[in-house]
């Protein structure tokens, strides 16, 4: 017994109790209140088709989903509490970990917000901005490749996953070459960059664009024009535009519902006004406007637009804003970041939607008084309950996959 008590004090961290789940994440529906034909099915949080630690409580009648209640928070890492105790520049690594498959886009939005608060937005060199856009668009492609590859996997298409991962690997290697890490970069700093892109990066980016264009068509051919894929996704999970706007849905999901809204165009931040790209919207080609097929199709088209942007950035980075010997991307990085007292809300177009940061600076501290993340995946996921009533359970998987959420950003 003596041995056991010491073990309890030092080693065992968690005491199992079968009421733990009921107390920590209680179901919304209770078995005793259900009708005879109804049944509660628990999906996740470790189910591979839920893309991370999402738990879905499904109220089903046979194969038909009557209601679905998402339970989130399994990946909550207290970003907002951490941010209240950190200087602005040290928050950037935490920002990386929000949407961890599109870190560059997160950093870009965050750095832009703090720069505008400090009032140094106009002074940022054009070369820095073009590099930021270049790496952010590369990362956008990587993020969409994950979305499409895993979505194919959810629906039983195995090959596109490998093709998507193969091409994503090129992007990750390029970004690793730039800043030393593959996923969580800490590359875009407030007022500049960690380092200039390596010599030859522009050529490699151009090479990648030329390599990837035909591969993308190939991927499109094998996946979204496939009969099985169309059968699984067309007319499934239809999200009408008015519901999408009312639920705060943004990004490719909103565009797939037919609204041409892209914050890169609307807010015209960074150097996007100087770049030429289209905003693809869903057309309901294979089914209804705003179904799962449209969402996947919009992601494909967006990758093509990103390739266009990358090609233009490369031209600019080799021409007007070419590398010079005395160019220092850290020249404007402030040694001490203390914005004057203000409330500031910045938003930017992430691969998954509108990423917003709300800052309150009190003017006396190097820490934000409050830093709130408006997470796009969080709002996009909240529409799941609306669009999956009355669908089959297999279609529920298709809908969850087409939302393309990253739980790191849902839970923060």
């Amino acid at each position, binding site marked *: 017994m003596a041995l056991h008590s010491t073990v309890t004090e030092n080693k065992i961290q968690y005491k199992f109790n079968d009421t733990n789940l009921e107390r920590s994440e209680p179901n919304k529906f209770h078995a005793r209140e259900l009708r005879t034909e109804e049944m509660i099915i628990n999906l996740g949080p470790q189910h591979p088709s839920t893309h991370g630690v999402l738990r879905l409580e499904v109220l089903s009648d046979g194969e038909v989903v009557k209601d679905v209640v998402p339970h*989130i928070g399994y990946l909550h890492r207290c970003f907002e509490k951490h941010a209240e105790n950190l200087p602005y520049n040290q928050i950037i690594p935490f920002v990386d970990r929000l949407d961890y498959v599109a870190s560059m886009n997160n950093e870009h939005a965050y750095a832009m917000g703090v720069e505008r608060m400090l009032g140094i937005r106009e002074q940022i060199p054009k070369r820095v901005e073009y590099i930021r856009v270049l790496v952010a668009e590369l990362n956008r492609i990587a993020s969409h490749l994950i979305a499409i590859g895993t979505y194919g996997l959810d629906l039983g298409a195995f090959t596109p996953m490998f093709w998507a991962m193969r091409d994503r690997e090129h992007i990750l290697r390029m970004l690793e070459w730039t800043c030393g890490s593959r996923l969580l970069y800490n590359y875009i700093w407030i007022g500049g960059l960690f380092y200039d892109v390596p010599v030859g990066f522009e050529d490699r980016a151009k090479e990648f664009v030329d390599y990837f264009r035909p591969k993308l068509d190939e991927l499109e051919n094998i996946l979204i024009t496939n009969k099985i894929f169309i059968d699984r996704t067309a007319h499934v999970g239809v999200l009408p535009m008015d519901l999408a706007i*009312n639920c705060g849905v943004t990004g490719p999901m909103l565009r797939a519902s037919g609204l041409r809204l892209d914050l890169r165009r609307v807010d015209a931040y960074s150097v996007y006004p100087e770049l030429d790209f289209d905003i693809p919207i869903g057309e309901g080609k294979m089914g209804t406007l705003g179904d799962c097929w449209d969402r996947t199709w919009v992601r494909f088209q967006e990758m093509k637009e990103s390739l266009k942007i990358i090609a233009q950035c490369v031209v600019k980075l080799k021409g007007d804003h070419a590398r010079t010997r005395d160019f220092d991307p850290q020249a404007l990085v402030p040694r001490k970041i203390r914005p004057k007292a203000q409330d500031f809300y910045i938003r930017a177009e992430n691969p998954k939607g509108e990423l917003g940061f709300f800052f309150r600076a009190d003017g006396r501290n190097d820490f934000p008084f409050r830093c709130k993340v408006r997470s796009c995946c969080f709002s996009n996921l909240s529409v799941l309950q609306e669009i999956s009533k009355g669908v089959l359970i297999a279609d529920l998987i298709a809908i969850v996959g087409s939302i393309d959420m990253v739980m790191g950003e849902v839970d923060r």
Partner: protein
Amino acid sequence: MEQIITLIESIINESVKREVNCTPETVNLPAGVFVSVMEGLYQNPSTYFDQLSCITGIDNGPQANTMEVIYHLYSIPFNQSLAIKVVLPRDHATIDSISAIWKSADWLEREVYDMFGIHFNNHPDLRRILLPADWEGHPLRKDYQHQEAYRDIKVKL
């Protein structure tokens, strides 16, 4: 922007307070009238704020003894952003829910409730969303004291 201010003033029949140093423009409203203003902003064809982007809770600490809820609205057809700020007393932080107007408010209000303990009246399903249901306290309050252990797991090492 002046149009919007006039509209809000016509709804509540008194002059409104505009905050300084805020991006986007922020209007301070009392908690009693704010739901009718939100409805007006949503329905009026000249403003048409059809998207509620973000709800932020702020705790100003025990000294100031106030809490704030900030709503960020965006009008897609007019490309206009607006923030509405409501200041609440800290010991009785209660506000009406606007989830009947914008469905996105549902989860966003649940998150504010989870983190700050601000109660939203008439919310359809006010449960904790990110933290476990049996977690003690609301962590983003400035005077938050974390519990010693959660299920025998030490909270702070």
